């Protein structure tokens, strides 16, 4: 069994390498002309972070029923995206009853604590909230399974670069 599986793996690997080389030959000129990440790309991330921040703080005073129907927003319990620990996911989470992701935990909070519907895991909203929580906790060392509360250090403003005055 082991040998067969190894052979299958070897064949698949060879195919992948061949496809990869072919892909590189086709796309290589584009890669050398443009950097993988530029300032505009970072701005796009900050737009997502700002949208996540907005959603994070919306439920406190109303907002879409996906988030909350009882007035509670994410920020009620998680100011500055504290106690989200993006560095600790995926992990076994008792409330989820399985090894899950931070996005699944967001939905658990929205559905159970905030009594809302939650968002599809691949939705723009879910990605924005993940972007916000992750960016706020940037620099934390990856530590899947960590079971400890952490809070990010935020010096000023909302905690990320914005085009406006940075005031909510």
């Amino acid at each position, binding site marked *: 069994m082991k040998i067969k599986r190894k052979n299958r793996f070897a064949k698949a690997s060879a195919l992948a390498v061949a496809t990869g080389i072919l892909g590189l030959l086709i796309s290589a000129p584009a890669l050398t002309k443009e950097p993988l990440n530029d300032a505009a790309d970072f701005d796009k991330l900050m737009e997502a972070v700002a949208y996540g921040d907005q959603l994070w*703080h919306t439920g*406190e*005073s109303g907002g879409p029923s996906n988030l909350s129907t*009882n*007035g*509670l927003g994410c*920020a*009620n*319990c*998680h*100011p*500055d995206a*504290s*106690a989200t620990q993006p560095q600790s996911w995926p992990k076994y989470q*008792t*409330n989820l009853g399985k090894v899950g992701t931070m996005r699944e935990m967001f939905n658990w*909070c929205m559905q*159970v*604590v905030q009594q809302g519907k939650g968002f599809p895991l691949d939705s723009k909203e879910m990605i924005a909230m993940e972007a916000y929580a992750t960016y706020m906790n940037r620099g934390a060392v990856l530590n899947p399974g960590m*079971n*400890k*509360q*952490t*809070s*990010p*250090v*935020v*010096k*000023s*403003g*909302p*905690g990320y670069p914005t085009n406006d*005055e*940075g*005031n*909510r």
Partner: protein
Amino acid sequence: MENDDKIDTFSDREKISRRDFLGVASKGAAATMIAGVFAPSAGSMVGLGGVAEAKTKSIKPFTFAVMTDGHLYNIKNHRFDGMFMDAVNMINKMRPRPDMVIYCGDIGQTGMEVEIAKGKRMLDKLKMPYKVIPGEHDWYLDMGKAWRGMFGAENWSMDHNGAHIIGMNSIKIDDFWTGPGLTPTERMGRVLELECNSCGPWGVDPEGLDWLEKDVKKVSPGTPIVFFSHSPLWDYYPRWNFATKDAPEIRSILRKFDNVMAVHGHVHQVVFNKIGNISSVGTSSTSWPWPYPPVELPYPEIRHNRLDPGDFADGMGVHHVEVASNGSGMMHYDPFNPSMLPPAVARGVKL
């Protein structure tokens, strides 16, 4: 952010030292001042207890209860209503029965009169007298109009069994709303975010300091002081307003007393600090717990355990403080779910 105000900053000590030297009116004040000024660490305050206990006048022991931060919404049958009522019922069942109950602010969430009135209806079911101080969530929709209509003066004091009890409005923010033309709802919307970065710090303001100075002028230094404010009297984490901007001045005014037991709301957590003659202790809410901020706790053993977000009552509860005949206090957390307390806290926190 570094927490460099675990004990008096050097400039604080300078201010206090000058003031106390000018106003050394009693042996108690002198003893307190020396410990406060020259003892650089909280640990070395242990000696102060002996001095304070020797000088403090004997009082008739009593107990008071504390509940706070209900954050009630104008939503029918909200679970915070139930937890608020559970807190009232727990206090009513306390034996010996507390002489009084103090509510440390944030009855409402969005400052609406109906939210505060809902809280008052439940507080009225307490079987003992109660006093209330405001929190920012009670205040910034109508600048305290509804709150004052229901509870009266925002700064108050009383004498009880030989102790002097003070409650103050510590959430006065400089006007940040007129410039940008914010509506009352927008103003409240900003303030209700803990990490509001456009609101600025808050405090009791110069008029509060004047009021306090006059209030304690004739109170003898040996009188035990119980002081209530929504926010802590030290720079715990200013970004979340876990601080009171004029706390150094407040501490300076109270420096003449042998023992000041300061109890605050706002932080929704177990936390403690001791600065000179002042013990400052945080309280659990009846709504939700706040995470610990990214600073080192001055007394790391006095905190709550990790909480279960699936247990809506975990991290919440009420409190009672026993004030002994020697003027010292013992703070007891009475949580809805006792598992939140490590043994060091479950035994009680000396004030």
